[in-house]
């Protein structure tokens, strides 16, 4: 596997590799930036409760990879007046002492409109390590990665259950931080059970890459997290957590929710 010149392993990947290599299953909670006034406190609560990295969503008006929960969270944040600038400013003010790396997840028009170089520089300044852009496949990476790579940001690629083998290899070769396995065909949102595709994709990824393999989409309970992590290095939990926040969970409740997921993963 060849690495594009100039892309090193950054803080996100170093942190996740170290945890994984120490025998720990990785837990990456997702929180929509700006969802509530004190949303940065939710990040601290998640970190204290055992998150290994935290995904921060910058809301976009047309989130085509998101189901009803994250759509509602995005809308709530946007209606509160949240902008990319307000999220990054909140992070600069309140997240400097977080000892887990942050990954921003948004849609490509957000960096495109701001200008990829400016967006990358501002993420770095806000202490963000990685970026996930679900509507940027390998073919369109040039829209973002020259700026992101130059700034030292780790761009995480998403793999699909129907990516053919050659694409999975190319995705893993290009991904930094971790590789994000989308464990189902569909959008984000809670699911009552884990489908067969999840383990299948996790095994295919583990067989071809040494990158941390983190599975997401639909992971809703500690039991599901543990089940999925048996074949992978860890999980992303989004909608299930965001729903708690939409229903009024405070930092303490978010901490309990994340701690339960942590316990589920550690019990394995």
């Amino acid at each position, binding site marked *: 596997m060849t690495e594009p010149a100039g892309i090193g392993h950054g803080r996100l990947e170093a942190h996740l590799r170290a945890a994984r290599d120490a025998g720990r299953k990785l837990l990456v909670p997702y929180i929509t930036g700006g969802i509530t006034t004190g949303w940065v406190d939710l990040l601290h609560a998640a970190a204290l409760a055992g998150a290994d990295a935290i995904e921060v969503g910058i809301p976009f*008006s*047309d989130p*085509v990879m998101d189901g009803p929960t994250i759509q509602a969270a995005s809308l709530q944040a946007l209606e509160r007046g949240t902008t990319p600038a307000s999220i990054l400013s909140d992070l600069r003010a309140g997240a400097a002492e977080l000892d887990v790396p942050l990954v921003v997840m948004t849609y490509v*028009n*957000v960096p495109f*409109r701001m200008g990829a170089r400016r967006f990358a520089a501002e993420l770095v300044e806000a202490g963000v390590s990685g970026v996930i852009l679900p*509507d940027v496949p390998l073919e369109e990476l040039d829209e973002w990665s020259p700026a992101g790579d130059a700034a030292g940001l780790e761009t995480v690629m998403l793999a699909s259950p129907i*990516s053919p083998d050659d694409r999975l290899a190319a995705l893993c070769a290009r991904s930094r931080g971790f590789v994000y396995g989308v464990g189902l065909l*569909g959008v984000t949102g809670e699911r009552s059970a884990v489908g067969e595709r999840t383990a299948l994709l996790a095994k295919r990824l583990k067989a071809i890459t040494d990158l941390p393999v983190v599975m997401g989409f639909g992971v809703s309970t500690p039991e599901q997290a543990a089940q999925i992590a048996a074949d992978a290095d860890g999980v992303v939990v989004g909608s299930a957590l965001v729903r708690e926040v939409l229903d009024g969970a405070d930092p303490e409740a978010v901490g309990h929710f994340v701690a339960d997921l942590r316990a589920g993963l550690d019990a394995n």
Partner: protein
Amino acid sequence: MDGDVTPFAEPDDSGRFGRFGGRFVPETLIPALAELEAAFRDAWADKAFRDELDGLLRDYAGRPSPVTECERLSELIGVRVLLKREDLNHTGSHKINNVLGQALLARRMGKQRVIAETGAGQHGVATATAAALLGQECVVYMGDVDMERQALNVFRMRLLGAEVRPASTGSRTLKDAVNEAMRDWVASVETTHYCLGSVMGPHPYPWMVRELHRVIGDEAREQCRAILGGADPDVVVACVGGGSNAAGIFSGFGSIAGTELWGAEPAGGAAVGHGVPGIVHGMKSFLLQDEWGQVTEAESISAGLDYPGVGPEHAFLADIGRARYEAVGDDEVLDAFATLSRTEGIIPALESAHALALVLRSREELAGKTVLVNLSGRGDKDVQQVSDLFGPDAGRDRGLR
């Protein structure tokens, strides 16, 4: 400008027309788009497929659609006006051309289920029609605001056997219907074909949908030559929502340097007019958005043009100066709607009335010239809405007389 792509040719390997287009979609859709591109390329080169499609366009949809010379209107405004009568197609608009092609393609790819987005309901009705004809399962996404505005078309789709699902997030209009259709497709892509309704979305759609509408321009060019003694019109005018009827008619005249191409955008949704590039729904193009890249809502009198983006090839044509785009306001559109009804006995779709309004407004510039207008659809679907606006005197005082 990018010299590699000539107007109305294929986009480059990355699906770009100049700096616009592309394939900005989740990984899950990449294999499906590659499959679709290969299937279309193969079908388009296959005489049996083309013959079957041409047969349906002729015997089912009623093609060729005529070109009508507007004598009274021409006299009134001092511009010779010809209309390409897509309103006379089965289901009442140009949309059927694209849909019959994609429905046959879905069958060829072994996909039994088709999904579509719709704004005014015309593309949804056309898709439901083709699905009924070919025995396919059909789901149409429609913003719940539009479902209310266009209740009759919702009933039509259901009558044709389609399921209509409301898109009840965001602005609850066309852009949200596209979002919902894409979310469905990400989950169902192995068994479902997404029948996109305009020259927008990720590659290959902008190119494929334009090719499926090229018949409008190819017919019109020959029909105009028959009427004009071998000459071509000075200007071809079409309304632009996503841009499919415009792309279809423009493509017949792309190589005729003496023919200008004009697109009429709604003032409340003039993506080319605003000229700010953005990326949404799988493509890079001009896009209505705020300073942070949040997509803003288009608002016009015609639901079919209420789209904040525009097909990437139109953005390219504007960039290289091959086509010109003007914004038209709701009032002018209603005047044009009334004018054509009274002078020619043809009630246009509100979308198509945008193209007419641009001609009426530009009549001094066009004096003595010959203009071909794409009458993309008929106004039956809009009569209720306009009757609420005009009241019982039916716009007696509106428009030119």
